[in-house]
């Protein structure tokens, strides 16, 4: 579904990704780990098409299409979803309003009838209950004054509503308490499906205890330096990046 070959990308003229290869098939869940500053979020931005990140070499194919030729919203509408490491606040825009706008943009794109307020309320009620999000949060402005954990759960809710084909979750487990972590993990597991792929960026084994990945990759200095099965994460947990012969960010 996603084939990244020899990807080089810069931001502000600074090389961040340096020849990255990654292959993700439908139905799979991949974990991407790596020291701070190794380029994980940058990879997610390049896949989503964020301005300011320039691809200088390489290619990304998504469902056989040249992803890099598509605009940000085209990518989103064709099923690419990014759960942000730092979700953005939009003052004055109610969360429910925002979600409805997004869901209806997707429905319109697929030639389906847009949801009216009542239909949407019903849909959102089902989805948010599973993530333990209360109704009050839906009425607040998007991410404004939300706690770190609330913001992350809010990203998960959007994934559930938009039902993407390729989801990239950038540290969705960071800042979650133990119970919330379980809720988010079961949210992710609930969305595993044969036609869907997920790339989970994380620093911690504790998420992978719940969401067992098909593959684990280690990103360092803008390259995938090790790939393996779920046992690779356990190895990392034991010996750290230094144990892999990599510089940890603390040492860098």
């Amino acid at each position: 579904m996603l084939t990244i070959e020899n990807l080089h990308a810069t931001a502000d003229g600074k090389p961040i990704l340096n020849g990255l290869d990654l292959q993700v098939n439908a139905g799979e869940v991949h974990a991407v780990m790596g020291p701070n500053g190794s380029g994980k979020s940058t990879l997610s931005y390049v896949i989503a098409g964020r301005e300011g990140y320039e691809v200088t070499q390489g290619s990304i194919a998504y469902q056989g299409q040249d992803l890099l030729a598509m605009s940000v919203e085209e990518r989103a509408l064709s099923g690419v979803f990014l759960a942000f490491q730092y979700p953005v606040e939009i003052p004055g825009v109610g969360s429910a309003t925002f979600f409805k706008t997004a869901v209806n943009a997707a429905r319109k794109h697929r030639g389906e009838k847009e949801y009216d307020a009542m239909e949407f309320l019903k849909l959102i009620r089902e989805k948010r209950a599973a993530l333990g999000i209360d109704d009050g949060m839906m009425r607040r402005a998007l991410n404004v004054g939300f706690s770190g954990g609330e913001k992350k759960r809010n990203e998960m809710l959007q994934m559930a509503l938009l039902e993407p084909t390729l989801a990239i979750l950038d540290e969705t487990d960071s800042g979650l308490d133990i119970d919330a972590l379980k809720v988010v993990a079961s949210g992710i597991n609930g969305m595993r499906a044969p036609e869907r792929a997920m790339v989970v960026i994380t620093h911690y084994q504790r998420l992978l205890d719940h969401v067992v990945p098909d593959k684990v990759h280690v990103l360092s200095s803008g390259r995938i330096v090790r790939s393996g099965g779920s046992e690779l994460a356990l190895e990392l947990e034991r010996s750290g990046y230094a144990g892999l012969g990599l510089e940890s960010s603390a040492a860098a």
Partner: protein
Amino acid sequence: MSAQQEAAQAVESYAGERYKYGFVTDVEADSAPPGLDQDTIRFISAKKGEPEWLLAWRLKAFERWLQMEDEEPTWAKLHYPPIDYQGACYYSAPKSDADRPKSLDEVDPELLKTYEKLGIPLQEQEMLAGVAVDAVFDSVSVATTFKDKLAELGIIFCSISEAVKEHPELVQRYLGSVVPYSDNFFATLNSAVFTDGSFVYVPKGVRCPMELSTYFRINAANTGQFERTLVIADEGSYVSYLEGCTAPMRDENQLHAAVVELIALDDAEIKYSTVQNWYPGDAEGRGGIYNFVTKRGACRGANAKISWTQVETGSAITWKYPSCILQGDNSVGEFYSIAITNNRQQADTGTKMIHMGRNTKSRIVSKGIAAGRSDSTYRGLVRIQPRAEGARNHTQCDSLLIGATCGAHTVPYIESRNPTARVEHEATTSKISEDQLFYCRQRGIDEEDAVALIVNGFCREVLQELPMEFAVEAQKLVAISLEGSVG
């Protein structure tokens, strides 16, 4: 050639050659020839069958206006070429049905496209586009039921010309009592030449059960460029008045100088909402309307309340400061404003809150949004008079910039002459951030919709003050006004 000159010329050629030896009042004529002198005013007044006192008032205003030549305001942050007041035409009869489009097929498709986007029902579209009356659905009967209901409650809602005839004592008592004929250059001009407008009187203790809206009179009168509105809420009454319309209004007259006066007696409340979307001109600002309005309300009695809410998106130039004079003790004034400028538009708008009575309160929430090469200025005055013990004001002024070529300015004037008063002013200026846009677009919302969403969020505090009838359309209007401002 300006729209005004064009209009003037059209009228000229239609009316035939100009009178050589001054203007001989010809009441039979449909239109006054371009130009402004005493005769023009007599003509207007005669056309309307006005009583002597009103003609005298108009003439006094005109005399004053002639002395004001140097008083055309220049303090606003607005730039426009000099206006040729003698080139304009001050009275033209409403268009006859023969001149109106017979159906929407004959209406400018661009205009229809906008109606469509705003979700305006077909029948209303016909009214707005000025389709000949008999082709329009039975708007007359709607208006009649509506009037009957108001009459039962003793509420008077009619054109000001009608009020002059039917209720002269009310008009004479209140006209010019809030905005005197000598008030300012544009208000004085209006006092001399106003042609029509609305009149509302709500009797003691009556709560007007519906939003009074100029919509209902849309084909009753050609309200014209010098509108005059007078709203009186007697003791303990309440009225909500909607002015304007989200649909773009085209007008051959470039200059608009309206006056609105509100009077709230003891315990009365007036809520006055405006959506203004006159033609802003083309992308270079050519041909847009100049809107110089004087709006002022007086809280004459104790516990009175006047609340202005405005959504200003149209016009090439907006010069407008809806104000409250808080005379009664404990009276309350509010001003909620959204001003959106795009392309070459310029807006200098704000309010004046004059605290005279004890414990008077005022609240100002202004949201200015500038895009393109436009300029938006908030200009506000809060004055606390010595007697205004315990007065309170809170002002919140937020500006949002879209792009790097527009400007937003905040000019607050505060004059406090009572030490017990508390005046608070907060101002912010922000931009739509790349982060916000990226976030929205990543969710499949295209850039234009994302901007509309973010701007609507920015304006939310004001939008929620609008009556339901306006709120939904106003949100769409925000989106339409900013089309083409990104990317």
